């Protein structure tokens, strides 16, 4: 088990290395001299030269990369040009907010997607299956920022049930915090629910055809027991791993959702950084999300090992 995780971590190293090179090169795409932006009004050649020296911009690209990655490995992602705060602390500050959104979204996604998948597999070919499939495809096709706008129109503007913005941290005001997160989490959760529904459905269909389900039926077990105890347990294995892999989608979806509901999280940070031309923040976020995604992949593989006894014995 540990050997497996260790091996997977080793495989992840080159991937992380390539991502870091890519993120480093991103800033080289920028037109113009970065020093001019740093210097602001001061165009004194001596100042510019000093800045160049300070940021190692006179060195060859490869040396610059090593300076940069050396700092990154020590947790230093650079400074935000806008707020003059370290990028690392900015990201750490916003992460809990997005984490709360992601967890609540996942609850919606699993709560809607898995039962829908089970029902449409059990009643395959019926109108229920047909509707569930159509709803899932619609969930995948609806732009989630539009769904957000529609919900605000309906729930906040017309019905006045939930606030459209005004997020408070969970630790400060838990009720308000959950209230303001309900709609965004639902919006974010629906797209994932659609994916989960499709995976649950196909996993259930495979399992329902298996011998042990037939045996369970043959020995006279009630259908409900067969489905919930024998089939579902096995069908859920791939579903669990898919949930972990949806992490990337969650983060990307959070960018737009947070924008609409003005939630001060990770996604809002990216968008603000893009508009303030705060490139160090954009770089830091790309790096952190990618590494996070790779870790989630690892977690998914490990979960798969633990849930599937047949995999556990394999070396």
């Amino acid at each position, binding site marked *: 088990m540990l050997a497996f995780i260790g091996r997977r971590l080793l495989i992840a190293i*080159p*991937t*992380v290395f*390539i*991502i870091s090179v*890519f993120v480093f090169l*991103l*800033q080289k*795409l*920028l*037109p113009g001299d970065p020093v001019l932006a740093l210097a602001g009004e001061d165009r004194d050649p001596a100042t510019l030269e000093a800045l160049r020296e300070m940021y190692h911009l006179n060195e060859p690209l490869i040396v610059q990369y090593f300076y940069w990655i050396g700092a990154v490995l020590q947790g230093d992602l650079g400074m935000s040009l806008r707020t003059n705060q370290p990028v690392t602390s900015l990201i750490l500050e916003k992460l809990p907010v997005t984490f709360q959104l992601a967890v609540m979204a996942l609850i919606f996604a699993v709560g809607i997607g898995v039962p829908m998948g089970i029902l449409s597999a059990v009643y395959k070919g019926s109108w229920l299956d047909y509707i569930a499939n*159509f709803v899932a*495809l*619609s969930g*995948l*096709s*609806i*732009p989630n*920022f*539009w*769904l957000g*706008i*529609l919900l*605000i*129109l309906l729930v906040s*503007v017309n019905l006045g049930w939930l606030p459209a913005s005004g997020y408070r941290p969970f630790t400060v005001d838990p009720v308000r915090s959950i209230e303001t997160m309900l709609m965004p989490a639902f919006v974010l959760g629906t797209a994932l629910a659609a994916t989960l529904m499709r995976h649950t459905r196909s996993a259930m269909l495979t399992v329902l055809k298996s011998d042990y389900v037939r045996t369970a039926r043959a020995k006279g077990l009630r259908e409900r027991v067969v489905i919930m105890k024998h089939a579902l347990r096995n069908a859920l294995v791939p579903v669990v791993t898919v949930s972990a892999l949806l992490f*990337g*989608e969650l*983060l*990307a*979806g959070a*960018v*737009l959702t947070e*924008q*609409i509901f003005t939630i001060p999280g990770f996604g809002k940070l*990216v*968008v603000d*950084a*893009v*508009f303030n031309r705060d*490139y160090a923040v*954009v*770089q830091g*976020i*790309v790096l952190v*999300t*990618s590494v996070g*995604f*790779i870790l989630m*992949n690892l977690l998914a593989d490990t979960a798969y090992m633990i849930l599937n006894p047949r995999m556990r014995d394999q070396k």
Partner: protein
Amino acid sequence: MSTVVSAPAPRMQPQAGEVQPQIEKLPPRRSRVWEKLRRRPSALFGAVLVGTFVILAIAAPILPIPPPAQGDWGAIRVAPSLDHPLGTDQNGRDLLSRMIWGAQASLLAGVVSVVIAVLAGVPLGVIAGWRGGWTDATISRITEALLAVPFLILAIAFAAFLGPSLTNAMIAIGLSATPIFIRLARGQTLAVKTEDYVESARAAGVGQMSILWRYILPNIAPPIIVQATLTVATAIIAEASLSFLGLGQQPPAPSWGAMLNTAKNFMEQAPWMAMWPGAAIFLVVLGFNLFGDGLRDALDPRES
């Protein structure tokens, strides 16, 4: 490897003057695919949805609608009426006109970015699968690394560093979607290259480029076409998202994403402004998804 993905039957072109053996009596593949597609109402519905928007987008210049950027200060945020069937926006511009012209931007962005992704990704994937060894290892590692960055975040990063414009949004989305096609083309090439007809072409001394062009490419095309159709759907949402964030089409040029961004500020006064662009994105994307799903089933040789 060849058992993982079932490659469709090879298309061997008979040489001129060759005697044709009389064994094949199946209808040509293209018409079989068409037959299967026609029997799927959802795929047809998808095609009709996409077709409608394509026609509207192409016909935009000749339709009897006001210019999309022409404002009317006497008709600001007018609710849908006879003069303005979809209402007007905060500058008094006709929303129907802006919707139709916006279709051009959305469809163009969706198609062009996927063309970029296919043109960049498929050759790389085929080379990786065909050559193997170090070439494959290098291309595959880079692909995996790029796949680890969430699609939209990657596109936002590219768009941010390239600068906001519709062209750059297309490039950003195209580059972000490239790894999907590298991986797919590589896997398909690996499956096809061990097939007998490739072996025999090689044995017969057919040149490498010729094998890739005449035997590999036609046989890996179906799954790539399906993926491309579905990726157009993703790309349209991505373009709308970038434009919504201000990283795509720049005002006053009309784009659905940008229209939604403006509409967000007038939700209470002019809710219709938010209805149309979102509904249009939804319908076009749904159309591509339905058609792509249908195409996948129709091209799958295991489905009868």
